[in-house]
């Protein structure tokens, strides 16, 4: 390990001796992050993810169900109910299609919406009767994670349920009070009485501040994702890929200047030399991420509430790029060839994977194709944390995919790598 570290430290020292590194590691990425961030909505929110799209199926169509949906938007103004709130800009991104449960399932899986909500046909009646009601809520948040939509739903259901309970209790208390005339002439009178209590209770709830609200106060403005919440991880990821993949060029240069061969004549295992080189590229990649996210923090960008989840994605993605760098090193023969190949790989995989714009805004087939790029898995993880409030559990699938890809690419690279 000592020799691996020596090789890595030396590699970093040589890299930082070249002053142009500051241009590619700091200046250019930050300029691009800034302008792409502005294009994505700048400080004022946007980034294709500030709105919380919720596919809704109101199978009850009662006053109570309509009220539940309306209250959802009161509790969290960022919630857009699809298809009800769709507009000429196709904010629900339905592309003219009718929303079916099957389509909704696909949209949820693809991360196009934050949640799906199904209100069953007997919701209103059962709620008023005080019977248990199952409102179906689906989201990509892992079990135990309460996203903003679920929190809003829970708050609204608490109100609705509370009013219904008050109405049922009121009717029972009245009938069992033993007072003269405390009986209903017919069922219609009973229903009217119950509705009056329900309305009164509901009004009382409405006069109280909701248990959960997402209304923004001035000092919390920065807690909302902005255009930079997309550009920082996106452009950061693209430059990490570029910085790490340059590792193949470094190996080529070292072969050319014979320092690589010289190391192989020393009492060091060849694998240690290559591991040291790759470790240096990994560290460079992490520095690149630190530069990008550090700049984001200076700009006051909101990156969600789970720095650990973000770090996990950064580490795994950088590791994946390191494996790719080693693989590319087995193909390239000249510096010119390496330079061209690097540009090609980065400029295809980055936009394809959603580094330049959110994948949610591209057609479905493009999203599927985009997931051939490791960038897509990293960006999806970042967006889960930053835009959907996810934690470590929400990025585990992405981390696993990237780790599997890393293992496969690394094995191929090791098999192909020639020391001679």
């Amino acid at each position, binding site marked *: 390990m*000592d*020799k691996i570290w*020596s*090789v890595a430290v*030396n590699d970093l*020292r*040589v890299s930082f*001796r*070249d002053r142009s590194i500051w241009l590619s590691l700091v200046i250019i990425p930050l300029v691009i992050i800034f302008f792409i961030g502005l294009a994505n909505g700048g400080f004022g929110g946007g980034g294709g993810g500030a709105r919380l799209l919720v596919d809704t199926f109101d199978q009850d169509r009662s006053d109570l169900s309509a009220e539940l949906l309306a209250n959802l938007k009161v509790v969290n103004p960022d919630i857009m109910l699809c298809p009800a709130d769709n507009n000429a800009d196709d904010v629900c991104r339905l592309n003219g299609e009718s929303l079916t449960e099957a389509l909704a399932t696909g949209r949820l899986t693809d991360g196009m919406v934050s949640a799906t909500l199904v209100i069953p046909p007997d919701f209103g009646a059962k709620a008023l009767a005080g019977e248990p009601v199952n409102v179906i809520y689906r989201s990509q948040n892992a079990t135990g994670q309460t996203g903003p939509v679920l929190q809003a739903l829970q708050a609204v259901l608490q109100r609705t349920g509370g009013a219904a309970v008050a109405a049922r209790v009121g009717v029972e208390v009245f009938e069992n009070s033993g007072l003269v005339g405390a009986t209903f002439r017919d069922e219609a009178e009973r229903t009217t009485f119950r509705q009056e209590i329900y309305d009164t209770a509901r009004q009382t709830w409405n006069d109280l501040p909701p248990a959960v609200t997402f209304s923004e106060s001035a000092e919390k403005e920065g807690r909302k994702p902005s255009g930079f919440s997309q550009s920082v991880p996106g452009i950061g990821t693209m430059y990490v890929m570029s910085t790490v993949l340059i590792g193949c060029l470094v190996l080529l240069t070292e072969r050319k*200047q*014979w*320092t690589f*061969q*010289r*190391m*192989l*004549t*020393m*009492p*060091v*295992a060849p694998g240690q030399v290559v591991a040291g080189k790759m470790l240096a590229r990994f560290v460079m990649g992490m520095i690149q991420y630190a530069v990008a996210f550090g700049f984001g923090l200076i700009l006051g960008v909101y990156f969600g509430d789970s720095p650990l989840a973000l770090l996990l994605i950064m580490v795994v993605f950088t590791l994946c790029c390191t494996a790719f760098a080693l693989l590319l090193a087995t193909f390239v023969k000249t510096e010119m060839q390496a330079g061209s190949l690097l540009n090609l790989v980065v400029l295809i995989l980055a936009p394809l994977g959603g580094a330049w714009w959110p994948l949610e805004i591209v057609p479905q087939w493009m999203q599927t194709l985009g997931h051939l790029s490791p960038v897509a898995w990293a960006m999806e993880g970042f967006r889960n944390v930053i835009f959907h409030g996810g934690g470590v559990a929400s990025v585990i699938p992405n981390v696993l995919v990237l780790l599997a890809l890393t293992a496969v690419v690394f094995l191929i690279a090791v098999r192909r790598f020639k020391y*001679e």
Partner: protein
Amino acid sequence: MSKQALVEVRGLKKTFKRKDGTVVEAVKGIDLDIYRGEVFSLLGPNGAGKSTTISMMSGLLTPTEGDACIGGFSITNQPLEAKKLLGVVPQEIALYPTLTARQNLEFFGRLYGLHGRELAASVDETLEFIDLRDRQKDRVDTFSGGMKRRVNIGVGLLHKPQLVYMDEPTVGVDPQSRRRILDTVIRLQQDRKMTVLYTTHLMEESQELSNRVGIIDHGQIIALGTVGELIQKVGEEDRLVFNVGEQPISEALLARFQTEVPGVTKATYETVELKPVAGMEESAELVVEKRSTGQMVVVRSGQVKDGTIVVYAKRGRKALPDLLRIANEMGVDVLSVEVREPDLEAVFLHLTGRALRD
């Protein structure tokens, strides 16, 4: 000097496969012992297989067949143990140009397993040895070719190895730096008691430095021994080279040389096509390379052929007056004469029919 072998090479072979599928045998099975404390040089023309051999012996290339043992450790099976005893000075300047001399030495020193004070002391000592202490903090890319060569050598000496491989370390350096490098090799043997394997295509270097020489050609050792032993192979004859220009030479002249002059064993005549030296074509007199000897000669403008009589004689200087007299009697105008005492060049010529420079 004791005859204990530090390096034992047995049946070392390397074949490469070309893209068209043909197989090239770069090294065809080398057997070699290098004794402790000696300077052994591997002498041969470019492309003879010297670098491939040294690459296999240092663990850089895997032999197709055979093995090399250093201090009893196989370079293929126990590479780390073998490499601890070995310092390699490659033909290329294998340094980081943007780092300083000291930083280069420190980095490679760590890979040799040196740390802390031991590393610092070793780097200081090496800088002193290669006489670059005052330039230790300067970047290598600001150094002259000779200084780079010295740092390149220094890296191979950091861990005080028992054995140093030096692969054509004087390539591309000025005469002064070359002299300094040769003196370094002598000091390594005399002061540090190191064993040195030195590859070169320059007969003079090999002859000056080596206790023993292996002559390599087409991937095979064709002769092995001390300089004296190798020269004996050509019978210790001097070579007298007569330049006769375009004059026709008769067999009778060659026969008289062999029969009438004591000590002459053989006389040959050869002509070569003259090639103008680049940039000299427009001169009144053409400057040409005389390929049989490698020397540059001035000949008449328009001359396209050059003739040489080579006479092998045991006491060449003593035979010279008689040879010139006979040539004069036969009407041959000798333009110049060169007397060459036996050397490794002659040995190579004797063994291969080619000059080392060819």
